[in-house]
């Protein structure tokens, strides 16, 4: 049980990344590949946020904290690690950008070849 608790997040992120990689490599349909890409990205985010978690830590917003007049001692152990959150926050927003570009490329391919399936596209290119 202890082992499960300590490592479960890391196992799951590995499984999620495996699912994403499999979809990107093996799926025939382009939109499916893009979904696989999204899953792969979230796998990485799970890893980062799991690293930031802290037992007994609350959310990284300081309580009753407005203005410099607050003189209570802030202990680092009371708050979860904010650094992975920052990195992943921007990563999520960038992921919507990459998702948009990927879908645009897929649409462009569809206008050109009238299919979203990889094997048909390859056939039409080789013709």
């Amino acid at each position: 049980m202890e082992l499960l608790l300590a490592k479960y997040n890391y196992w799951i992120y590995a499984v999620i990344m495996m699912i994403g990689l499999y979809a990107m490599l093996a799926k025939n349909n382009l939109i499916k590949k893009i979904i696989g890409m999204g899953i792969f990205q979230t796998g990485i985010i799970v890893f980062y946020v799991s690293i930031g978690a802290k037992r007994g830590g609350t959310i990284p917003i300081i309580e009753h904290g407005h203005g410099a007049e607050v003189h209570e001692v802030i202990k680092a152990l009371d708050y979860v690690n904010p650094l992975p959150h920052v990195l992943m926050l921007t990563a999520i927003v960038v992921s919507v950008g990459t998702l948009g570009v990927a879908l645009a490329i897929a649409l462009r391919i569809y206008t050109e070849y009238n299919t979203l399936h990889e094997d048909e596209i390859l056939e039409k290119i080789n013709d």
Partner: protein
Amino acid sequence: MIWQIDIMILTLIVICGVFAISVKDLLGAAVVFGAYSFLMCLLWTEMGAVDVAFTEAAVGAGVSTVLFFAAVHRSSRQVKARVSGRLLYKWLGLVASGLMGGVLFYASTDFPDWADPASPASSHLSPHFITQTLTETSVPNIVTSVLADYRGFDTMFETAVVLTAGLAVLIILRLGGCRTAGPVREKSAAIQTAYKDSIIRFVTRMVVPFMQLFALYVIAHGHHSPGGGFQGGVILGASFILLAISYDLKMALNRINEKAALLLANTGVLIYAGIGFLCMLLGANFLDYSILHRILPATDEIAARSHAMLGVEIGVALTVMVIVMVIYNNIVSNGTYEKGL
């Protein structure tokens, strides 16, 4: 962290992920992927990453699912059942992902335990951020202060990446000849009553202004509660997307046409970089906000950092809002701006 909920949600996530890639209907796959994002949002909240959860709620659960719908609307929905020549790829995918998974599982034995307070990641840089943010910047939300101040350089280029993505979508979909009918300049798309699906339109009309105000609130209060430029920008963009969905594309374009939109997007990045250069002009380093107390009235160095962060967030919000709109508008109309979802 709440480990009971953590384990439940992680298990649900794996189920969702497996089926998101195996459902034989693209729209269904998009819906399952949307549910996957919902669960992700819960996972972040449960681990205490409220800002990430907010972003995921806005981006993952909202906008990206709508983008998938738009793309499926413009292309096809069918997935071919089985293709004989793909067996090689299947095995390749299995072997590659198996190898990667094996390596990652092996590596996980070396990781510190989950939620260990003494793990290396939590013991070097982040204690400084946590303990000093109030005295140095007077911003209680540590994520905001790290995002906009301590790592401001990074965030500026993230914003630039988002802008680039929007421009790339424009270029890709318009490539090979101008298919646009020019900017839409019809006044006919004003709001009328008595449409067929009047329920959706009425509710949309009621909801959109509140949504926009909520987005502005999120931007303005990013210092004290979760939120900030990215989240607020996405919600603002989503409010225009909601208009475009429930009325039509022209209605949203009448409010912000493409030219104004792109101008705004560039202004956003310029505001960010401009604040940085302003600091340089006053003799400090790039994006070193504390020098700004010389020109901002009634502020000391600490308050200047806080206020400059707000300015930066506004810039980020402008860019993100416009780019989300531009990506949606182009994908749903395949670059022509003619007819939306």
